């Protein structure tokens, strides 16, 4: 097997434990994997940012109309150089196969989700351009079941400043299907938190009672 990231041949050092537990192929080599940095405690209880248990961004959000939209949350990895490269290849270069890179970790983390798993959707035209829904594919690779309750309208996020984005109108609409009480909202990357808060607010307005967020990367 070749490493999906560096193309070097993955050498197995079979141990008894490995032989018993590992029956699937490793998608990336040890060296590449070591480049990613997991987020450890202490971290923000809402967005997962390493540092204090409530980050300044989230405490600001709690003074806005989005107060209480997100009940709790975690992010798995830091947005370091290796992760930037990964995301660039996955999303911008459209290397769908890279959805497998974190499959084991995603699976472990989402094994017993506290609520129905709901991915952040893509806008239809964006989906046509990218040719695959990147969040859904991360979950598919990890064999996690999920359901969609949201529809994304056209976004112009990239051109706006942070303030403008925080104040912008909600880009998510409810798709009309009965919303479960407890939801685990999934996204690949948390940057400003606007996307996840808008999505969470839409779901709460539609009847959800508890919303936790889960992101692969807390930027």
């Amino acid at each position, binding site marked *: 097997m070749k490493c999906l990231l560096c193309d070097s041949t993955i050498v197995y050092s079979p141990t008894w434990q490995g032989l018993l537990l590992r029956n699937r192929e490793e998608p990336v080599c040890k060296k590449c994997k070591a480049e990613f940095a997991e987020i450890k405690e202490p971290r923000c209880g809402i967005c997962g940012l390493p540092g204090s248990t409530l980050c300044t961004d989230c405490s600001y959000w709690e003074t806005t109309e989005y107060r209480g939209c997100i009940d709790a949350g975690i992010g798995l990895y830091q947005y370091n150089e290796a992760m930037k490269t990964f995301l660039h290849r996955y999303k911008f*270069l*459209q*290397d*769908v196969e890279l959805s497998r890179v974190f499959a084991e970790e995603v699976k472990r983390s989402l094994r017993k989700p506290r609520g129905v798993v709901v991915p952040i959707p893509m806008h239809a035209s964006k*989906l*046509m*351009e990218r*040719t*695959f829904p990147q969040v859904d594919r991360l979950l598919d690779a990890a064999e996690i079941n999920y359901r969609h309750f949201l529809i994304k309208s056209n976004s112009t996020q990239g051109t706006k400043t942070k303030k403008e984005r925080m104040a912008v109108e909600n880009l998510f609409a409810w798709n009309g299907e009965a919303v479960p009480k407890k939801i685990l909202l999934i996204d690949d990357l948390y940057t400003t938190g606007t996307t996840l808060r808008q999505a969470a607010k839409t779901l709460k307005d539609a009847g959800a009672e508890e919303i936790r967020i889960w992101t692969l990367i807390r930027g």
Partner: protein
Amino acid sequence: MKELEEFLTGRIWLLNFTPFSKDLIDEYISGGLIAVSKGIGKDRVCARCLENSPQKIISFYCSKCEEACYYCRHCINMGRISSCTELITWKHPTQPPQKNHSFAWTGTLTNLQERASIKVSKSLEQNHSHLVYAVCGAGKTELLFVPIFKALQKGLRVCIAAPRTDVVLELSPRIKNAFPDTRIHTLYGGAPYEEGFADIVIATTHQLYRFQDAFDVMIIDEADAFPYSYDASLERAVIKAKKETAPVVYVSATPSERLLKKVPERSEIFRRFHGQDLPVPSFKPLWNYKKSLLKNKIPKKLADWVTDKIRKKEPFLLFLPTIELIDHSIALFQKLDPSIEAVHSQDPQRKEKVMKLRNGEVAGLLTSTILERGITIPNVQVAVVGADDRIFDASALIQIAGRAGRSSEQPGGDVVFFHNGIAREMDKARNRIISYNARSRS
């Protein structure tokens, strides 16, 4: 020739990623001048890089097509090719207008270079491929100037391909100086767009993926690894980029057995242009060097060698087998001289650091194999630490040894292979160097 035609002649390009407007391209497509083809057809072969292995041509559910598509992971860094992307080519290339090329090189060739140069020209006149088998420092590039000039005068399009960006960047100014009136493009990953039709293209082998039936003469510099056992698609790229009957000139200091068999027309130079012998490497045992370095101690023999070079103010290159070992050891060597720097393949400051060594701003460089070719530093001293490591095959070791003694002022130079047990490849390298020296005297 219009700008679009100049750009597209001989190229195969992603429809959505050209330097031209979509409208302009559409106009030429409907006018029948540009051909459009599928990125990956039913045969599941990438039309750009010709990759066909199922490990690289991946099936996925495509949201655009709403069905299974394939995409190529092999050449994905150049923009993804999939079943539903389209590639464009210029349908009927016209002969570009005849230009006045001039030849401005004023140096002189040695007798050996001259003889090889004439042989290359002769092969090319007959459309035959040719192998220039010449030791490091034989002056291989210069002997190609006249054959290139003859090709240009006949209105032929010439490509000079090399495996690595460093080599391309080193060749480019030399070729441009020799042919000041010729339009020359230099292509490598991240290179800026250059306009017009280039009569000479200097490119990394990877960039050849983007050409098709383009070149009348193909020169492959540093063809040592050819036919690229580690990446068969590069060989296919060479074949695809040239016109079907175009001859290939392979240039190598250490050609593979396969290449020697494949190309019967050959010129050999086993003598450096300054006429002196190649430095023969000496072997010095350095037991458990890895363990010692990891315990933050430079083995005495190695420390002595480095200190000696620092004292004599001789620039040195120290080759180590892994980047990890370089990263770990650099601080230790900096204690001997704080100006010592580490450099490896992904280092964006690689060029600057090599220049610093050349200018005497740093005492020496710790490096991985990547710097083995394409640089000339007067009076450079060379040592390989762990020459028995698998990463150093005979051809790499010959190249590394060939860094030393390149200038006529200082044709000597120390070459040491520090080892943890003599490997066969080390013997092979030394024996070959000795035989080159012997053959050059006979």
